[in-house]
Each structure stands twice: as structure tokens, then as C-alpha cells.
């Protein structure tokens, strides 16, 4: 930063005049900018940045709402390594993500291809596939609790009318995670489909026509033109979906409350039950940092594999 222009004599200009002439990287500073950016910056500092630092402080205490907090050093951090639940909820979250991320990418890609070329059903399909994303997670979860009910749910009634046994979709250890993953895919694909449709429409038609003229089959066009051209959009939805599935909470809380026996509890459900049901807030703060760390690791791995994403 340097003062712009010669400073003339014993200023008639005064402080405000001098400020007005202050230069930053060669051009005049626009002081009104601080008034423009100020309100949001204030919210950002108080609602985003300050809580993170306070949360780090809380993680070193035994904060709970019933007694005065005491500094306990690294105890909460050490607890993470001896707490069997941490491994359990972390594994559950990874398993759900492992099903949800590829499931969402494949299904939303299928829908995007299906809807992209206009025909009779394309608008209807697009509308209905997107609809679940427009309603609250409470609605989605409760609908599926009813459909997947072991005794009276329509899915099991349908299965048993076909002579198949009834399945405890949300109550058996082996089915609970696939069921939650399926509902999550059902809920979210519409959003990603829309992103992919935009990607598909950016592919120049001449390119596809030229390939067809050169005798390329539909399959060749898909693998050699469509898919590579969709790469940025696909990377974007993979990134978004990884972050989203690590944070899964609402559908689990509402459909199984983490059961049976904690087999569907996710990282965020564990943060919730630790911090807000047992009010062990110090430990919950450590668990949130663990979630943050997990997200960072995944983002870094994704970055290493695919490079930067252009938002």
C-alpha cells in the first residue's frame, strides 16, 4: 500500500482527502466497499468464525448445562480412542456414504439422460423426481416409515403376496443401512439430476452429430463424448454428495433414531445424542471436530483424484 500522488504542502486536503487518495495495488481504494461487505462480514465473524474457535475451546472442557465447565485438557480427545461408539458411528456413516454416493450419481445420470431429450414424459419425470427434495426431510422420512413398516407396510404386503418373507427394513441389522441409503438416494437424486441436465445441455450438438456422421454408435457417443464432457458436472455432484452423506442425520433420527442397537447411528446422530440428549457438550464438540476432519480428508482425497472443482 502506498500513498498516491505527491502530498502537497501542509494539506488543505486533510485526513479524509488523504484517505480518498490512498492506493492499493495501483488503484484507488473504494471505501464504500467496507459498508457493502460489512454487514455480511459481521454475521460471518459472529455466526461462523467465532463459534468455531469457541467450539475448539469447549472441546477442552467438560461443558454441560447443569454444572460449571472445567478445563480438562485432552481428556475428551483421548476418549475418542477408547469410545467403541465412535468406531461404530463412523463405520455406519461410511457404509451409508458408500451406498449413497455411487447410487445417487448413477441414478441421477440415468434420469438426466432420460429427461434430456424432450419427449412426452420428460417434464413429468423431471418434476416428480425433483419433488422429494422440495419437501422437508420429516415428510420424506415419515412416508417411508409407513411404506417400510414391517407388519403393515405396503412393501412387505406386496412381497408376501408374491410369496416372499417379510423384511424388517428398518428394524433388522442387515437391512437398516441399505434402507436408509435407498431413501436418501430417492430424496436427493432430483437435485443432482438438474445439475447434470445443465451439463448435458452444454454439450454442443454438432459434436454429437459429427460423431454420428462418422458412424459412431450411441454407445460410443456416450462413452467417448457425453461422459467426458460431463466430467466437471459429475465431479461437482460427487463432491457435494460426499459432503452431504457424511452429514446425514434427519432421515436416520426420524426413521430409526439410530436403531436397532445403534446400527444406523451416524456421526451427526452421535453428536446429537451426546451433546443434546446427555448434554455432554465438551465431548460433542470433539465429535464435531472429528466430523470436520473427516470431511477435510475426503475433500483432500477428492482433490487429489480429480483436481479442482469450478463452482
Amino acid at each position, binding site marked *: 500500500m502506498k500513498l498516491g500522488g505527491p502530498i502537497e504542502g501542509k494539506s488543505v486536503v486533510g485526513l479524509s482527502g488523504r484517505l480518498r487518495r490512498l492506493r492499493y495495488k495501483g488503484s484507488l481504494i473504494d471505501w464504500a466497499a467496507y459498508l457493502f461487505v460489512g454487514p455480511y462480514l459481521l454475521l*460471518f465473524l459472529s*455466526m461462523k468464525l467465532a463459534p*468455531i474457535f469457541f467450539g475448539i475451546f*469447549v472441546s477442552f472442557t467438560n461443558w454441560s448445562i447443569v454444572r460449571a465447565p472445567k478445563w480438562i485438557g485432552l481428556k475428551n480427545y483421548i476418549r475418542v480412542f477408547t469410545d467403541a461408539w465412535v468406531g461404530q458411528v463412523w463405520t455406519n456413516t461410511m457404509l451409508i456414504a458408500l451406498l449413497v454416493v455411487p447410487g445417487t450419481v448413477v441414478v441421477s445420470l440415468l434420469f438426466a439422460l432420460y429427461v434430456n431429450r424432450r419427449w412426452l414424459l420428460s417434464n413429468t419425470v423431471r418434476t*416428480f423426481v*425433483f419433488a422429494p427434495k422440495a419437501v*422437508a426431510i420429516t415428510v420424506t422420512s415419515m412416508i417411508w416409515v409407513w411404506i417400510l413398516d414391517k407388519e403393515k407396510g*405396503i412393501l412387505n404386503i406386496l412381497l408376501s403376496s408374491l410369496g416372499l418373507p417379510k423384511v424388517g427394513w428398518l428394524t433388522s441389522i442387515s437391512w437398516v443401512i441399505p434402507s436408509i441409503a435407498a431413501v436418501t438416494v430417492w430424496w436427493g437424486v432430483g437435485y443432482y439430476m438438474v445439475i447434470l441436465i*445443465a451439463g448435458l445441455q452444454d454439450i454442443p450438438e454438432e459434436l454429437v452429430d459429427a460423431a454420428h456422421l462418422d458412424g459412431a454408435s450411441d454407445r460410443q457417443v456416450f462413452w467417448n463424448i457425453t461422459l467426458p464432457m460431463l466430467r466437471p458436472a459429475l465431479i461437482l455432484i460427487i463432491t457435494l454428495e460426499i*459432503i452431504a452423506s457424511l452429514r446425514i442425520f434427519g432421515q436416520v433420527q426420524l426413521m430409526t433414531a439410530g436403531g436397532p442397537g445403534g446400527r444406523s447411528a451416524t456421526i451427526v446422530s452421535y453428536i446429537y445424542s451426546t451433546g443434546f440428549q446427555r448434554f455432554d457438550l465438551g465431548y460433542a464438540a470433539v465429535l464435531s471436530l472429528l466430523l470436520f476432519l473427516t470431511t477435510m480428508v475426503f475433500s483432500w482425497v477428492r482433490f487429489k483424484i480429480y483436481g479442482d472443482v469450478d463452482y
Partner: protein
Amino acid sequence: MKRRKAVNAVKWAFGLLVAIVWIFPFYWMIVTSLKPESYILASVSLVPEVFTVQHYVTVFTKAPMVRWFANSIIVSVVVTLARLAVSSMAGYALARMRFVGRTVIYLAFLGSLMIPDEISIVPLFIWVLKLKLDDTYWALIMPQLAGAFSVFLYRQFFLTFPRDLEDAARMDGCGSFRTFFSVVLPLAKSATTACAIIVFSFVWNDYLWPMLVSFKEPWMTLPVGAAIFNPVGFQQTGSQFGYGTAMAAIVIVALPTLAFFLGLQRYFIQGITREGLKG
């Protein structure tokens, strides 16, 4: 031509599958809400044999649905308007104005998009309790105002905004604020609509934070409150309601958003595709 027919058959079969998997659950929700509880449990029929509105009566008498609806509207509208105001200004400054610290501020905002919101729920919850703001609109609204994605949406928009208009306004003697509010912002309608719709539907459907800070029923939002009808029956809620009542409750929650979505579908989709990838 044989192949073409096969392709068409696949297309229709796929459409039918979508209809069953994506439309049927909503249909089933509505049908169940209109059947008497005894019929719901006794048989499976795709249309109600006996109609009843009893479940809707139960929902409205057992729960302050109107109050929850009002809470949801107040919170969503205030958050949306406030965020449009602060983030349009911040986005404009980041895109157009020169000032010391712009890069640092920009990178801080960008970095915050990568951080899961859950990291701040413990500290914010402690503050809410310390300041005795639990069961108030303050607690429901304030933390929602700092989302950075709307700032980016505006910044991207203003980066491609033609400079001539601003220069013309300056020539006419408008200051920065006059230029922004009477010339630039009115022409940013597409960014504003996209941002408004995405923020509104996000806040309207939000679950975790409003659940944490509303202890008493009158302060719940619709998605949080409706969960008392959840038949899963957690230890903490011990729901005694049947599926009919549960479905009636979520029909009431879903209808306004579904209507909102169907009415504004075009803008929803434009918003997501053109600018709001980070919904």
C-alpha cells in the same frame, strides 16, 4: 425399426418405474391420511373404501399447526430477505470494488463453504442458552443468516454484469449506494430469484437447528413439530398416533412446499443450474 420399438418400450417402462417409485409414495401418503385407522391396518386398497377427515381434525386439535406454520413463514421470510440484502451487497463489493483485504475476505468466505455447519451447533447452542434465547425467533433466525453460498451466487452474477450501466449512473452523479440500489440491484433479478428460492426452501425444510433450540411446542417450525406425529415412537416423543394421523400431519407440511415448488419450478431449476450449485 425393430430396434426403435424396443428402445421405445424401454423408455416407457422406465417412465412407469419412475412413476411408481417417485409418485406412489406421495399418493400413498394422501390416501392413507383419508382412511379410518381400522381400515388402514386391516386392508391394502389403493383408494379409500371409507373417506374420513378425522385425522386432519386430530392433527389440528392435538398440535398448534397454525402457530407452527406461522413460525415457519416468519423464520423463512425474515432469513430470506435479510440474506438477500446482506449477500447482494457483499457479493457486489467482492466482484466490483477495490479494497484492502478483499482477497482474504473472499478466501475466508470460500473456505467456509467447505466446513460442515454441524461444527458450530455445540458452541451456538451454548450461546443460545447463556443468552436465554432458547424458544425465541432470534435463535431460529440468527445462525441462518451467515450462509456464504448466497454471497457467491451474487458475486458470480456481478462479475459478468456490464460495467457501462454503473459508469453511466456515476456520470449522472450517483454515489456507490444509489448506483447499487437503484441501478444494479433491480437488474439482478435472476440472481435474486434463484437465491430467494434456494434460501427459502432450505430454511423452510431445515430440521436439526430449529429442533435444538425449540424446547416448547409453540416455538417449533412445521418440520420439527410434525415429528411429534412420527409413529416410530422414540423414547423421547412416545408418539401415540397411528399412521393415518401421521400421514395427515405430513400432508399439511408438504402441501405448501409442493405448491410453491410446482408454481416456481422453472426458477427452482434455473437457480440450481445457472448459479446456485451450492444449495
